[in-house]
Each structure stands twice: as structure tokens, then as C-alpha cells.
């Protein structure tokens, strides 16, 4: 009787489903968080009789086979890269990418990390850094005498310096794009790393074909939909219960067997 292990695989799958859903709900207010979805696939099948096999008695071909499945497994936890909503903050160093693309951050190791969370700030040296203090690539340094900093849709950072009327250009931000952004490796702190699945990053200034534009004074909200997550949670919980019911049934049957004599 496989039913016990089949039901156990179902319970494990639903447990992981609940883990993924709870992670989404926990990150409902995380800037630029992308919701994830657990995807399941059926496990291999025991072929007790292959479809199309010839029946031994009179040579007729069986139209059906006997294939018994052995449960479910988790196929992938896929990140949904849908655009999140835009939240107006009016902070001059807050930026959101409207469309495809990731900001680039230089990690202490020199490696580039990618993020959609544009809640930036300037550090003591005037350098534009992420909220965790990693410098934004390409580096932008805001002079201390700068008053109003403006960032255009295509990433040009300009500042009005005290005593000057014409704004001075400080640099232009670039965003990175991937063929398969869902293949990026999430490393926490809203950051992602390049992987063989994502493909290599191609960078361009915002607004180029295939790249999004920047919105100053806005932050991208997470794309978690609370109603959807709660209903998925109900589905996952009920599915878990049903699999537990199978275990009870199998247990009852085994009990019946042991009580025959």
C-alpha cells in the first residue's frame, strides 16, 4: 500500500506551499518584493500494465494501462516579476523602476547585486547608497553644497548648487536587465545575484527599448495581493487536511487487516 507515502508527499508539498505563502504575506509591505508561487508536478508512475500492451489471452490490445502514481513533488518556486504599485514618498533619493530593469549595487566583495528597491540615501561622503549602505553603480556623488537634486526619467541626476542658477549634472544612472529575471538568485535584503539561469546582465540608461524608466520620489510596492494569498492559504490548508484524511483511511484499512484474526 503506497497510500501512506503518497499522502505524506502531498502533506509535505502543502507544507512548503504554506511556507511560500507565509513568506509572501510577511513581505507584503517590503519595497519592490516580488511574490513567489510554489509549482508542483506529479512524481513518476508505476507501470503495472503499459497502455497499448497486448493482452496474453487472445491477443487484443489493451486500450488503457494501469499506471499508479506515487505522489507529488515540488517542481519550482517561481518568482512573479509583475510590476508592483507605485507609492509616492516625495523623498528625492527614492526611485522606482517603471518597467523592466534592476538597480545595481556594489557589494563589499566588488560583486554587483541587483535590486528593484530604490530607497536610496546619501552617505557621509555624499555618495548615493542603498538603505543598507551599498554604493549604487554607476557611482553618483552629491556635493555638500547641493540643494535640490532631481533625477530624470532617463536617469540623469542633476543638482542645483548654492550660488548657481543652472543645475549641474552629477551623472546618469544605469539599470540592468536580464533575459530571464525570474532566474535571479534572491540573497535577502531585497537583493538578487546573477545566475546561469538569469543570463548575464545587460545595462543601459533608463528609457532605452526594453528598459523601464525611473520615477523619482516613488517606491515600488510589493506585488503581493493579500486576497489572493489568503485564498491560496485556505486551499493549501484544505489540501493538507485531505491528505491527512488519506493517511487515516490507510491506517484504518491496515487496522482492519490486523484485526482479521
Amino acid at each position, binding site marked *: 500500500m503506497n*497510500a501512506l507515502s503518497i*499522502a505524506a508527499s502531498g502533506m509535505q508539498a502543502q507544507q512548503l506551499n504554506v511556507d511560500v505563502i507565509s513568506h509572501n504575506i510577511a513581505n507584503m509591505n517590503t519595497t519592490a518584493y516580488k511574490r513567489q508561487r510554489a509549482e508542483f508536478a506529479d512524481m513518476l508512475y508505476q507501470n503495472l*500494465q503499459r497502455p497499448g500492451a497486448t493482452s496474453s489471452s487472445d491477443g487484443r490490445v489493451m486500450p488503457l*494501462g494501469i499506471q499508479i502514481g506515487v505522489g507529488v513533488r515540488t517542481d*519550482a518556486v517561481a518568482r512573479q516579476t509583475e510590476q508592483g504599485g507605485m507609492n509616492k514618498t516625495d523623498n528625492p533619493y527614492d526611485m522606482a523602476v517603471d518597467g523592466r530593469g534592476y538597480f545595481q549595487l556594489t557589494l563589499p566583495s566588488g560583486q554587483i547585486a541587483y535590486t528593484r528597491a530604490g530607497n536610496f540615501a546619501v552617505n557621509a561622503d555624499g555618495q548615493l547608497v542603498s538603505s543598507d549602505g551599498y554604493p549604487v553603480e554607476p557611482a553618483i556623488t552629491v556635493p555638500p553644497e547641493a540643494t535640490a537634486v532631481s533625477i530624470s526619467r532617463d536617469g540623469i541626476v542633476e543638482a542645483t548648487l548654492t550660488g548657481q542658477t543652472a543645475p549641474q549634472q552629477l551623472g546618469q544612472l544605469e539599470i540592468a536587465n536580464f533575459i530571464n529575471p525570474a532566474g535571479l538568485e534572491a540573497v535577502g535584503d531585497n537583493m538578487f545575484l546573477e545566475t546561469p539561469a538569469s543570463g548575464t546582465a545587460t545595462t543601459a540608461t533608463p528609457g532605452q527599448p526594453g528598459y523601464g524608466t525611473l520615477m523619482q520620489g516613488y517606491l515600488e510596492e510589493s506585488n503581493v495581493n493579500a486576497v489572493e494569498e489568503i485564498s491560496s492559504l485556505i486551499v493549501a490548508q484544505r489540501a493538507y487536511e485531505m491528505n491527512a484524511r488519506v493517511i487515516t483511511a490507510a491506517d484504518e484499512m491496515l487496522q482492519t487487516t490486523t484485526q482479521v484474526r
Partner: protein
Amino acid sequence: MDNAQLLGLQTQRVLQRRLDVAANNLANVNTTGFKADTLVLEEADDTDAHTDDNPSDIRFVRDLGVTRDMHQGDIAHTGNPFDVAIQGDGFFMVQGPNGQTMYTRDGAFTLSSDGQLQTSDGYAVLNSGGAPIQIDTTEDATPTIGRDGAIIAAGVEVGRIGVANFAAPGALSKVGDNLWEAHNNASAPFDGVLIQGALENSNVRPVVELTRLIEISRAYQSAANIVSGTDDLRRRAIQTLGQ
């Protein structure tokens, strides 16, 4: 041994297998594109359990095959541009591990790092001509996939997702990983539509499966009663005759 005891045993064996099938259906209640299985039973025609003193035929129950409930699963919106659901009969074609064509109803596709349309297990999705589909997304943000499977990127058709349809669903067997294997060529025309940004849910009906579960448990108990009843009868016979 007595026929009654053997019949009871065979019934229990078949019921255990029915439980396995119901358990697998319930385990896959959230599996994209999953189709529920049902075990078909028959009277065994070639294993008559004759008794010398009783001319009437006694026949064993036997599992004849597994049928697939091919009815449409619910279509759930996901918002992912590479999720595609089939509304209607038919299967997506994917390139299996040995280059052979395999079939799936699970349309949770992604792009590989070189722009190939793949399943979440990394098998290439094929067009109607049986070739992998290459999409260049650097030009256009998100390609649209038409109801006929045409992938339009930056206003140009870059590929067309192939759908194979079979006249007899028994011509396919499941191989796991949401994949199916065909024993005949696709023969029927595809008259359904593809829906972008959606996935087909499993078509397992929990109420049916849970009801079946109860039925299996009870039938198993009855079969066990036959076995123990026969045993009882024989014990009493030995006791009475021995006196």
C-alpha cells in the same frame, strides 16, 4: 483455501490499489494541469474460480486499467506573461530528455538565459513544427501570446506555441513531472484556445475523492469480514467434526 477467502483477498488487493490512486489524486490537488485517475475494474474473464460441488461461476475482480478524467481544470489567473493555459483539449509539446516529443498541460513556462521558452523543469517548449521557440525579450518588454499560440514581440511574430490533440486520450500515458508520453501520433485538430497569464488547475474534485476514500475503507472492511467469516466457519467445522 476456500474460494471465499481468495475472493476476499483479491478484493482487498484491488481496494488497496484504488486507495493508492485516490491518494495520488489528492496529493496532486494543487498540481498544475493534473488530470485525475480512476481505476477501472472488471470481472476477470480468464480466471474462473470453479468449485467442484458448485457449478456456478465465481469470478475474481481485477483492475483493468486506469482512465483519465480529461475534463478541463479551472483556469487561474497568475499575471505571469509566460504562463499559458489551454482551454479545450490538447497538450503543449515539449522536448524530452532524449530529444523525443513529450506532452504537458502545465503551461508554467519561463525563458532560459539564452531566450528559449522552457517548462519549469527546463524542457524546451516546441512550436507546431516541433522546433524549440526562441524569444528575444531585449527589444520588447513582454511578448504577448495570442489565443492561437502566436508569440508577438515588438509587433512581430517570433514563434507559435504548438498544441497537439489526440482523438483517444488512452493513447497517452503519464511519466511524471507533469509530462505525458504518446503511443500514437496526434490526430485530432486543436479547436481550443490558449490563455496568456493563466494556468490550468488540477481537475481533481476533492469531494469525489474523499467520498471514494470512505467507500474504499468500508468495502475493505467488508472484504476483511468475508476473510474472517470464512476462517470462523472453518474453525467451527473442525471443532464440530472433531468431536
